[in-house]
């Protein structure tokens, strides 16, 4: 059962990585990062079944940081949208020489 949970977690994390690498919409990118955080949370919970309650405490911490990251990241997306008029990451090439 823990094996199965870790396998599900690995598949979800891989899907999140593929999403980050293939999409260019900044908001979808953030959602893929959230999916990866959720996959890691699942493996924390699975291992907390073996090693006690510490894993669940870590999951609560991860959720808090994810909430802060979502708020800050989306504020940055809004600021970028004001500057560029788009959230397409391919159009953000101000730093390209």
């Amino acid at each position, binding site marked *: *059962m*823990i*094996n*199965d*949970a*870790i*396998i*599900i977690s*690995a598949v*979800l*994390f*891989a*899907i999140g*990585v*593929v*999403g980050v*690498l*293939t*999409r*260019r*919409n900044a*908001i*979808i990118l*953030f*959602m*893929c990062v*959230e*999916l990866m955080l*959720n996959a890691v*949370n*699942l493996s924390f*919970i*699975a291992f*907390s*079944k*073996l090693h006690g*309650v*510490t894993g*669940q*405490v870590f*999951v*609560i*911490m991860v*959720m*808090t*940081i*994810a*909430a*802060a990251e*979502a*708020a*800050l990241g*989306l*504020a940055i*997306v*809004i*600021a970028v949208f*004001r500057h560029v008029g788009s*959230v*397409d990451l391919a159009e953000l090439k101000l730093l390209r020489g």
Partner: protein
Amino acid sequence: MSSLVRFEFYFFGLLAIASALCFVTRKNPVPAALWLVNVMFSLSGLYVMLDAPFVAVIQVLVYAGAIMVVFVFVVMLLNLGRAGELADVRSAASRLGAGAIGIGLAASVLVVLRDKLPDTEFAAASDNVVTPIASALFTDYLVAFEVTSLVLLVAVVGAVVLAKRRVSA
């Protein structure tokens, strides 16, 4: 161990993976966000099966209830709902590379799992679930807990400052 619990575990696991696949293939951000909410509900079901009902409730409240609402709100705010201009998938070569990286990542975890972990039973949830988490959170991890509140404060102030600033165009 009840076979119904086993069935529900695999049901929620497959539902999570299928919803994640639907999520990552949507072009429009709004359906993608709703599929991601579905993933989070399925993971919440898995947490209940894995004997962590408190975290399951927090998952629904915080992730599906708060974080995803912020995502959908920003999508609506930026008026990104029109498909077509959001056909944002990268080129075929990049997609192939990303797929290979994803399969490699998943396979590496599966290889590690060949040394089988000790398997535990599907146990019924104990009736005292919050007290152990609270005692660990407020004794061993008290410093981390307080620093987390500081991080949240900084995030709130930073988000307001970033989103409020007028652009001198």
